[in-house]
């Protein structure tokens, strides 16, 4: 048959799997078209200290890095990392359960056990993976996870991965939590997941009551203390310690990428069977272990945080001063009182928020722009996180920047 007579079979049209993100692309383009610097594409060309960097070409005060205790440039932390890199090389190239456990992986887990005075510690490659791994491994199909609706994405992703029944309750609502806990079918496994500090608004959970109620109803309790380690509680163990319930918490999740100043995540626990998790937790097994330099820096940092009383006091001073100052200027804040090292400034909408963010950046101040869906109640927030290395003068400077930017944008 002549080729010209046949129709060339046409391939079926490809469905563009990225088409579903068109609304996000449009929102972003509209924002950038308004002349705003891209809030999600900032580059730090040089980092001068825990509180100063050259950002997009400008000398900038950092007020949105979660570097609460300023350990990123600590001399001992850097020296330990350098030595480990010299002695053990740049990376592990392997899983913790195969060739990826070096001396310093063991040592950082020992440091965590000392810090929390707990029997077991397990280090993951990030805090996200710690929640993903522990939650998905603990609570599987048929189990129930009762959690605060404002929980971090890593918690929700851990829930989804484990296929447990997920039952959220209204943020920090003790009664709503108790009601749902009591409705769980008899005999089902129950895991209550809470956070010490909620990172969007910087508010603290009523762990004292919640942990008690969870225990009374036969649930195991996991508390994410990512945003409290090092400066909340007598030993810096977090909100559970501060509120006197740490002994009733079954699992504490934390991260090295905030107060510790490096990267990595962990879970500490007194559960006698805890060590089995190393064999069954997929986000622990099927990924490469962190580089030895990161482990050595982290171990040094954790042990130094055990003696960080003065820095801790200064961090709280900074938090109180900034909170009061912003209130006095007329900004709307996420909490009535400073409850943590996070102070959330509530913006009227995304457009004003982005303008304010940019105005602050031009003043020489970096804060986090947070927007839905990461934020509760569809809010746009400028999230400030303080550092123990911010000087009192820097905090005064920061308040001046907020005042000028807020007036220029018309928020105050």
């Amino acid at each position, binding site marked *: 048959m002549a080729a010209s007579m046949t129709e060339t079979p046409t391939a079926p049209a490809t469905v563009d799997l990225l088409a579903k993100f068109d609304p996000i692309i449009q929102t972003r383009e509209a924002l950038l078209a308004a002349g705003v610097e891209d809030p999600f594409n900032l580059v730090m060309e040089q980092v001068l200290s825990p509180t100063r960097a050259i950002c997009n070409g400008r000398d900038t005060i950092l007020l949105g890095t979660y570097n609460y205790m300023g350990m990123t440039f600590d001399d001992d932390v850097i020296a330990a990392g350098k030595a480990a890199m010299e002695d053990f090389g740049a990376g592990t190239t392997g899983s913790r359960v195969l060739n990826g456990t070096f001396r310093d992986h063991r040592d950082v887990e020992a440091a965590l056990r000392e810090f929390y005075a707990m029997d077991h510690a397990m280090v993951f490659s990030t805090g996200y993976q710690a929640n993903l791994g522990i939650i998905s491994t603990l609570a599987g199909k048929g189990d*129930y996870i009762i959690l605060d609706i404002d929980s971090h994405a890593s918690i929700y992703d851990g829930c989804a991965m484990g296929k447990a029944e997920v039952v959220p*309750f209204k943020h920090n609502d003790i009664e709503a939590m108790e009601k749902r806990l009591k*409705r769980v079918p008899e005999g089902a496994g129950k895991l209550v997941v809470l956070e010490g500090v909620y990172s969007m608004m910087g508010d603290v959970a009523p762990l004292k009551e919640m942990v008690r109620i969870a225990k009374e109803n036969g649930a195991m309790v996991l508390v994410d203390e990512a945003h409290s380690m090092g400066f909340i509680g007598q030993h810096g163990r977090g909100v559970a310690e501060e509120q006197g319930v740490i002994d009733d918490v079954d699992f504490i999740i934390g991260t090295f990428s905030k107060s510790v100043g490096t990267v990595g995540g962990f879970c500490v626990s007194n559960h006698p069977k805890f060590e089995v998790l190393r064999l069954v937790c997929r986000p622990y097994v099927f990924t490469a272990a962190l580089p030895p330099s990161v482990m050595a820096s982290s171990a040094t940092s954790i042990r130094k945080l055990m003696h960080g009383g003065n820095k801790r006091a200064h961090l709280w001073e900074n938090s109180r001063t900034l909170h009061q100052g912003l209130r006095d200027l007329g900004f709307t804040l996420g909490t009535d009182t400073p409850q943590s090292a996070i102070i959330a400034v509530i913006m009227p909408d995304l457009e004003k928020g982005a303008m304010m963010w940019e105005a602050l950046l031009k003043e020489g101040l970096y804060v986090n722009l947070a927007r839905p869906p990461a934020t509760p109640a569809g809010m746009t927030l400028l999230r400030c996180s303080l550092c123990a290395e911010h000087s009192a003068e820097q905090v005064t400077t920061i308040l001046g920047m907020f005042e000028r930017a807020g007036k220029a944008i018309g928020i105050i």
Partner: protein
Amino acid sequence: MNSAEVNERIRTLIEPFNKKGIAIEDATTFAGDLEFDSLTVMDFVAEIEDEFDVIISMNQQAEIENWGQLVAAVHKLQDS
């Protein structure tokens, strides 16, 4: 409680959330027709849970798109 009674009870609960007063039938969808955002869903689900003393987990919520499915799910839950 039979299905009609469940339907009636949830109809009372949805009123404050149905701000545009959309007429509700079995095929009425929460995300589409009623324009419920995630916050509204949370509050509405909490009301139903408390009224019927049941749990509607997020996993179950994901399967419920319209009014008819909701009534059927709650009817089944409060029966068990």
